[in-house]
């Protein structure tokens, strides 16, 4: 069966990448179709329907005893999501959605459903640093991007507008960055999110602390973290939107008038909810009031008369013409029951196609189609941040389990000559106690119960412990490795007959050495604050890896990056600097898969900036 209707652009996926492109193009008057694998009710943007569906997510979260990023959301047999609860220590295994060949299991998840993974992201929105774009020429490792930081600057500003970033520009003192990084007059749309009480206590002893690492001395800095959650509008911020300037062939930001004040974007279900963070402290996995940005907000603000959305439509392939140079359509399977293998098959046509299914799914769709792979880079260079966690008890009460997940970070090791030797990292201070590494406070309780405690005594012990739990992250940059890759295999398919991703994955010594280095730094920070180190890694746990005879456990960050890298040559990259496939002029790829390297910033702001960059290129191409 073939749907007759034609669209200027057909986009696969309604996550932030697809949503930004859809919004930008529909506002420029282009007709856009989004194909979305997830359930219809998740895409209901009418207030009543959206509220009912979101309440459903929330109740699922409340009653789910395992509180991981995907807990609130439906995991569909017809379009499964990668889930961290499926991760096992011993590879290979194929018991989850991802087929994990190992030797180390890939440690991150995503959400396949309307709005995508931003429904459960944390919302940290850091820009990459200038040196992150030139790792090869500066430090002799990984690859350079096909352009420098300067090229990204105006797109970063668009992304910060669209996501609605709260932060303080002046406080962003970053390594090897000058004042032009933001520009002297730049401000974020909203004031910074207040740093936590705990941040203040830790900063007292840590800010300006001198630490020693491999023969060098570094001064630790603590910085407030810019983030995609609503606070108070910054009255100096005058940007009002992004527009396509046809004459100049460029996207431009435009300002409101003298009296204009930026309006925080509320929840999609109630205009009076979510205009400001309320401290629910559950940003991952779900912000009850949607004060945190999610991609449904962008979809809702697209030009609706130019936007069509097909839900419950799972794309399996792009179709190529005889020359293999042109995409002629997208094949998808439409289902009515998410647990049944029944579907109807369709093909849809457009001028230009965009795959925005996230890094792993994009690679899978391309491999299944035999598309875009003359460089043999599709699926390769899969990356993530390796999050090594260290935790301890503070001497005074710091009252964690309050506020957004993280409000302060240590940027000191985000850049430096040490990158020749080991990977860089960022250290967010975590506001949610030991929840991530130990499952506290449930385990705080079970530990006390195991000692026979009950009643007032139990209460007092838990109070003493819970109010002193401190957790520090070391989010280490993974560099591209062609052997870390997504492939497909006839043996592994889901119930609709679509491929499941097969993942081969390992951690190089360049990264492992950073675990050793960051542990050295952690010890010095803990000592300076009198924190009693309680960090314990169990060598038989998943993702516990050895370096110099010591085991370090890392977690995935959810930053799935690098499977269809951008570059300056078709020989060693999949897409050009506009994220157009070198092999097919009318196929664009969106999402973190395009990123040649990862840097130490959470990748979504950069990816959102890239989405604006390719939206501009798509508009140019449509109008040429």
């Amino acid at each position, binding site marked *: 069966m073939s749907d007759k209707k034609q669209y200027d652009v057909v986009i696969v996926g309604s996550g932030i990448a697809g949503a930004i492109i859809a919004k930008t193009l529909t506002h420029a008057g282009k007709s856009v179709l989004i194909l979305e694998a997830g359930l219809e009710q998740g895409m209901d943007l009418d207030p009543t329907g959206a509220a009912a569906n979101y309440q459903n997510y*929330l*109740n699922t*979260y*409340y*009653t*789910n*005893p395992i*509180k991981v990023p995907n807990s609130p959301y439906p995991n569909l047999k017809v379009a499964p999501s990668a889930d961290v609860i499926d991760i096992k220590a011993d590879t290979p295994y194929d018991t989850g959605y991802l087929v994990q060949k190992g030797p180390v299991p890939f440690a991150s998840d995503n959400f396949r459903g309307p709005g995508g993974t931003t429904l459960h992201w944390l919302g940290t929105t850091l820009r990459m640093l200038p040196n992150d774009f030139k790792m090869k020429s500066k430090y002799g490792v990984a690859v350079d991007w096909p352009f420098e930081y300067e090229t990204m600057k105006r797109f970063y500003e668009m992304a910060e507008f669209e996501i609605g970033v709260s932060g303080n520009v002046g406080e962003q003192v970053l390594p090897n960055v000058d004042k032009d990084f933001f520009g002297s007059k730049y401000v974020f749309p909203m004031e910074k999110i*207040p*740093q*936590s*009480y705990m941040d*203040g206590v830790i900063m007292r002893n840590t800010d300006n602390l001198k630490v020693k690492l491999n023969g060098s001395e570094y001064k630790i800095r603590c910085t407030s973290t810019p983030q995609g959650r609503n*606070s108070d509008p910054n009255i100096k911020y005058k940007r009002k939107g992004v527009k396509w300037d046809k004459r100049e062939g460029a996207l431009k930001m435009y300002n409101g008038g003298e009296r204009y004040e930026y309006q925080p974007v509320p929840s999609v279900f109630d205009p009076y909810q979510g205009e*400001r*963070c*309320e*401290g*629910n*402290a*559950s940003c991952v996995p*779900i912000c*009850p*009031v949607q004060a945190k940005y999610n991609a449904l907000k962008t979809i809702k603000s697209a030009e609706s008369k130019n936007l069509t959305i097909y839900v419950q439509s799972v794309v399996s392939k792009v179709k190529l013409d005889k020359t293999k140079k042109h995409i002629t359509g997208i094949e998808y399977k439409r289902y009515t029951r998410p647990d049944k293998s029944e579907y109807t098959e369709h093909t849809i046509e457009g001028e230009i196609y965009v795959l925005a299914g996230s890094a792993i799914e994009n690679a899978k769709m391309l491999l299944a189609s035999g598309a875009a792979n003359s460089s043999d880079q599709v699926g390769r260079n899969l990356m993530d941040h390796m999050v090594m966690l260290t935790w301890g008890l503070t001497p005074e*009460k710091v*009252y*964690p*389990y*309050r*506020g*957004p997940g993280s*409000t302060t970070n240590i940027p000191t090791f985000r850049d430096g000559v040490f990158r020749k030797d080991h990977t860089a990292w960022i250290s967010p201070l975590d*506001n*949610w*106690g030991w929840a991530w590494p130990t499952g506290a*406070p*449930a385990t*705080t*309780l*079970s530990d006390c*119960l195991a000692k*026979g405690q*009950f*009643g*007032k*005594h*139990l*209460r*007092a012990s*838990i*109070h003493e412990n*819970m*109010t002193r739990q401190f957790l520090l992250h070391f989010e280490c940059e993974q560099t591209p490795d062609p052997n870390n890759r997504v492939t497909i295999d006839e043996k592994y398919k889901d119930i609709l007959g679509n491929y499941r991703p097969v993942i081969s994955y390992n951690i190089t010594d360049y990264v492992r050495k950073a675990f050793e280095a960051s542990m050295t730094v952690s010890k010095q920070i803990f000592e300076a604050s009198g924190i009693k180190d309680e960090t314990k890694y169990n060598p038989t746990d998943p993702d516990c890896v050895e370096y110099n005879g010591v085991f370090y456990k890392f977690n995935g960050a959810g930053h799935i990056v690098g499977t269809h890298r951008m570059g300056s040559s078709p020989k060693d990259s999949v897409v050009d600097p506009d994220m157009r496939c070198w092999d097919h002029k009318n196929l664009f790829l969106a999402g973190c898969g395009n990123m040649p390297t990862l840097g130490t910033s959470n990748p979504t702001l950069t990816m959102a900036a890239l989405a604006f960059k390719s939206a501009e290129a798509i508009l140019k191409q449509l109008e040429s």
Partner: protein
Amino acid sequence: MRNTERLKLFAKISAVLTGFNVMELWGTSMMETYFYWVNAQTKGAELDSFYAEFEKVFTYNVTDEAIDRAVADSIMPKESFGGLANAIITLWYLGQWTCGEGEKAKTYIPTPEAYQQGLIWLIGQTHPPGAKQPGYGSWATTPDK
């Protein structure tokens, strides 16, 4: 014993086990839910002897200290009553109930309210993540402010 009397006893037991007083526990609105939940999830004979043991504790001990000592001796040991005391504490603290052991263990949160009323969050001077939000900027000061 009639259910209404047992419910009273359940409240008293819960107070001793959790360290919260009976009024505070009723204030969570979970008392009856948990009472019936425990009834439904526990073998009749075990439950009867659990209540009987507690009645004994309350009959023969007057001060809080004496009650605590008796509970520590006869109720808390793991082998007593299939670990029921710990299960009741966990239900009040986390809103969770685990059936079975080891590989076969399965944990339930009976209702969204059970999670939201978890006492552990009060003990940590905070709130259950995702509910009872304390308001913008509340995290920037101590919870006593």
